[in-house]
């Protein structure tokens, strides 16, 4: 990796948007990379779209803000519509195909639909849909190993939520598998 990767994660408040972004940043820090996470913390996050941006780099990070993302992770249609035009040429979009059907994507951008809500519901809880998306992104980017995300999740969940580690790991794995299928 020679250049910083600018990632924008967006969705409804409650879909785990902030957590997804944070986990990417935690994983990068764990793997001795530089990472930076910026939330959108305005009043517009209540009930509306939530978004955050993450920068992952092997070098010191200069600007904490960027106009166009290399990667857009969209959990719902309003987010995809809002941020699709803020993706670089040759950029990629991962979208939640459980909620977004056959989106029109501008040319030059590769888009991958992952049915993260369906994956999560199949595992028994909709709450891990963001983890399925994280798994799909990990598979696509090849950025973080399973050991890295496991270590990060253990710390993130803490003792109180340690019992949720298993289901989160399952969702990540299912997201990885979905990405492999979509890529083919």
């Amino acid at each position, binding site marked *: 990796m020679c250049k910083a990767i600018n990632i924008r994660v967006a969705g409804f408040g409650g879909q785990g948007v902030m957590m997804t972004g944070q986990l990417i940043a935690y994983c990068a820090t764990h793997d001795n990379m530089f990472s*930076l996470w910026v939330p959108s*913390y*305005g009043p517009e996050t209540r009930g509306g779209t939530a978004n955050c941006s993450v920068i992952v780099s092997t070098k010191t*990070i*200069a600007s904490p803000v960027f106009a166009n993302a290399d990667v857009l992770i969209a959990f719902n249609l309003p987010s995809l519509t809002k941020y699709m035009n803020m993706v670089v040429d040759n950029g990629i979009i991962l979208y939640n195909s459980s909620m977004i059907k056959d989106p029109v994507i501008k040319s030059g951008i590769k888009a991958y639909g992952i049915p993260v809500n369906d994956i999560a519901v199949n595992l028994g809880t909709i709450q891990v849909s963001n983890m399925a998306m994280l798994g799909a992104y990990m598979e696509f980017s090849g950025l973080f190993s399973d050991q890295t995300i496991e270590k990060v999740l253990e710390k993130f969940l803490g003792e109180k939520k340690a019992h949720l580690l298993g289901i989160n790991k399952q969702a990540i794995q299912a997201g990885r598998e979905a990405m492999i299928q979509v890529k083919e």
Partner: protein
Amino acid sequence: MAKQLMKGNEAIARAAMLGGLDAFFGYPITPQNEVPEYLSRYMLEEGKVFVQSESEVAAINMVYGAAAAGFRAMTSSSSPGIALKQEGITYLCGSELPCVICSVMRGGPGLGSIQPSQGDYNQATRGGGNGDYHVIVFAPETIQETIDIMKEAFDIADYYRNPVMILVDGLIGQMMESVDLTKPVKKRFLPEKDFATTGTNHHSRRNVVNSLYLESAELEAHNLALKKKYDKVIINDTRYELINMEDPDYVIVAFGTMSRVCRSAIETLAEKKIRVGIIRPISLWPFPNRAFETIDAPHLKGILVVEMNLGQMLTDVIVANNGKYPIGFYGRAGGVVPDPSDVVNAIGHFKDLVVK
């Protein structure tokens, strides 16, 4: 030590504890709430003092009391809250009490917004308090630098017996970044706190902490002593960074988050064969006038000041530049954070941005 991912506000709080914070007094306000939230838990765990006061005014006066008793005291707030603290700040300066004030800027004026801003440059460097006084103001650009300065801030405050302000915008407070809390910082020899009101068991004479001098000659002598101290700060603790300053076509002056945005912008500009350097003030008071004396650039077309306000540091740059080069200004306000492409465009339109 390995790096960890930390939120700016929590890093400020942890670094303050590493810097020897004894007592924190604060009142909630976005976007700095994680500072008191973090301290409310960890200060008590370590048997230190944490008070959520009834108001900002109360908090700064509690800082006065704790500092007068010789403790390392701190408050933090955001723009309208810092406005309320101005009376306390001039009293702290008048009484020569060391303390640290953290200011996490949001949009203004008035209640403004909760989005990031650099609109309190003047509030921090000029202040709203009365009399001849200065607060030593540092404006870090990363969370790492915020930690490093915060860890040193109590030493600087104690050394000069003067308030030190850490001035960051809401973005630094709210974002998370990989940081190293163990990076060593400069240590200095600190005088005994013989002014502290610790009771006559500890000192024979009666210690009075006060900023009232009814005799004009006496007050003038006090003013001159303060002036001498401020001159010493200017000589010893003016801080700035020069970036890419070899024969630039343009020089950008920016602090805090904006200087990071400009770092990315000048990389893009370099690809377009436009050489741009950056003067990054780290101490806003004292302002690094001397950085401008070092400019040696035969091809320099001008200096562009970039701020998240409508031109506050600009005044200091105009003074420091002393009419030598054309000065342009690009600023956004109201909580808008310009991205690197905005700065690239601003350099492209420098002629239109020149301040008359």
